């Protein structure tokens, strides 16, 4: 455990920026929203910015990514295949605990199942994560009911906790420890640890008064989502409100469905193509449409309940080793149909269908 003066905390980011592509939160003037993106310099980072509009998952699973470049010349029958792996060192500075939990879900899903996702593995290889404890919730948050926050317990290289005029710096890995030592940070003691605990407790008590947008008792519905004991009419009611826009999937730290298409290379030769992987959403009608037009999941409610199955069922939890929702509240925030996860949980709990 170490300490760093508040006015010095971005020196850590600056140091990381020397060897990594630096990502962090900042207020975007044009949209007046908090974003978590690559920054030009450490000073652009604003650790006090609210929960960013999009989680940092794009650093590991970009919206649009070339994964294979190839060419096939039919005249000579020559095939060239060149996989594209991105192992650039990236540092995510100031990640919120919910979003860190999201990354851990992605890790377990992409690296822990029967097959390992090679593309993701490379993105993850040289990643440095600096998380920060939330000392107060935002209006939309319900991480406390999903075990997604407000403090990170694993998965970070360094974790920051705002203690007033200093940050408590905890190392979660050898890499993190090395950096803290190299920066010559002062040692923290039990008193600082106790202050961190006090601040987390305080944060949790604030949920009632501050995090007023969303409440979701997900434990009350997990069993029913898993076993399917939910009235069809409830799903229809939920489905009927969905605009099939896909926003919920794109803002979710744990949604990772993707599409793959092969495209002719832009400005490339006649035989050159790129295999591209892009974000996708199970809310789209084309998501399950088969060649020839048959669609086993045609009605919107059959598609809409999939998302909540992924977030809330025990079967899916086995892949993440925890629930698939981390309680960030983003889907509720963006959904034009008002069927973000917390509302859906409420509909299921109360069997609301009209």
């Amino acid at each position: 455990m170490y300490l760093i003066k508040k006015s010095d905390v971005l020196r850590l980011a600056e140091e990381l920026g020397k060897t990594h592509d630096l990502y962090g939160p900042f207020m975007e003037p044009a949209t007046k929203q908090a974003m978590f993106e690559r920054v030009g310099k450490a000073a652009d980072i604003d650790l006090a910015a609210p929960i960013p509009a999009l989680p940092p998952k794009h650093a590991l699973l970009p919206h649009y990514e070339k994964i294979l470049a190839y060419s096939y010349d039919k005249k000579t029958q020559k095939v060239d295949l060149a996989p594209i792996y991105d192992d650039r060192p990236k540092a995510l500075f100031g990640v919120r605990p919910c979003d860190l939990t999201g990354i851990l879900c992605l890790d377990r899903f992409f690296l822990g199942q029967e097959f390992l996702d090679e593309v993701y593995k490379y993105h993850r290889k040289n990643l440095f994560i600096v998380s920060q404890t939330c000392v107060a919730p935002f209006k939309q948050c319900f991480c406390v009911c999903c075990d997604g926050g407000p403090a990170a317990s694993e998965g970070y290289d360094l974790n920051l906790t705002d203690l007033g005029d200093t940050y408590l710096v905890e190392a979660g890995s050898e890499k993190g420890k090395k950096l803290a030592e190299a920066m010559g940070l002062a040692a923290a003691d039990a008193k600082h640890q106790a202050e961190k605990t006090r601040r987390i407790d305080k944060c949790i008590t604030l949920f009632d008064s501050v995090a007023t947008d969303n409440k979701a008792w997900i434990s009350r519905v997990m069993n029913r989502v898993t076993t399917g004991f939910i009235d069809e009419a409830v799903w229809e009611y939920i489905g009927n409100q969905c605009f099939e826009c896909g926003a919920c999937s794109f803002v979710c730290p744990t949604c990772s469905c993707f599409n793959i298409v092969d495209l002719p290379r832009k400005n490339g030769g006649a035989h050159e193509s790129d295999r591209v992987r892009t974000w996708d959403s199970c809310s789209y009608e084309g998501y399950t449409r088969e060649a020839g037009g048959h669609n086993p999941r045609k009605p919107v409610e059959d598609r809409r309940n999939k998302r909540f199955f992924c977030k809330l069922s025990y079967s899916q939890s086995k892949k993440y080793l925890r629930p698939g929702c981390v309680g960030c509240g983003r889907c509720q925030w963006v959904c034009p149909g008002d069927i973000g996860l917390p509302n859906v949980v409420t509909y299921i709990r109360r069997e609301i269908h009209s």
Partner: protein
Amino acid sequence: MMENGKIVTIPAVATIDEIKDEIPNVRTYYLSFDDKAIDGAFTFRSGQFIMLTVFGEGECAISLPPSPEKDRFHITVRSVGKVTRALGGLSAGDKVGVRGPFGNGFPFDEIKGKNVVFVAGGIGLIPLRSSIVHVLQHRKDFGRVILLSGSRTPSDIMYKYNMKEWQENCEAFYTVDNPTPDWTGETGFVHTLIEKAKVPVENTVAFVCGPPVMFNTVNQELMKRGLSDEFIISTLERHMKCGVGKCQHCAVGRTLVCTDGPVYTYRQIKILGEQI
């Protein structure tokens, strides 16, 4: 490159050695891997599939119709969309890409000694062919072996060149919905053959593949005769992108067709509770 006997990420280049017309719009492509090491090492189980790349167009999931033993490596593909139509435009000597084999495969060890009934509707024979050939190669390990194949017209019968051999080695029945004057086989939908063939239900397992309507009627008929849904086995088809459990397009209930399937029992399919 192969990992645990599978080509997982980067397609291996294969050459189309020969193309055979099957029925209108459906062709069989005999393939061999350009890398001799892969050609020697590539093995699979009946019921598994590959991800086929048509260069410049994309990838799609394709079953493996050959028997895992003593059979030429080939695929049979119907031209329906972007990738499969482009494949239809290729000629012998052209290159394609292959990843796989993926999926669980048929449970042959569990069904030794049983009667085996294959019921295929149209190109449903493609995913079943591997098992049919396999069972006939090990004829002594099984009880009665029955093949019921239904097609729209006589010119829609798949693998016609295997017909004679199959009729000699098992109880094979072919039916068409719309006969031509020279048709000497059965007429009517394939489920009507179940009665005609006196399909047993004791100690029996049925493999059923075909379009959704056919699948449902055949299963109802088999169950009416007393065959348990545990012993009706099929493969599911889903829009699929990666083949290795990551893109999630092929989710059916809590399972993924690419890694948990494509072979399911009818009981499993019913429990998963999604449309076929």
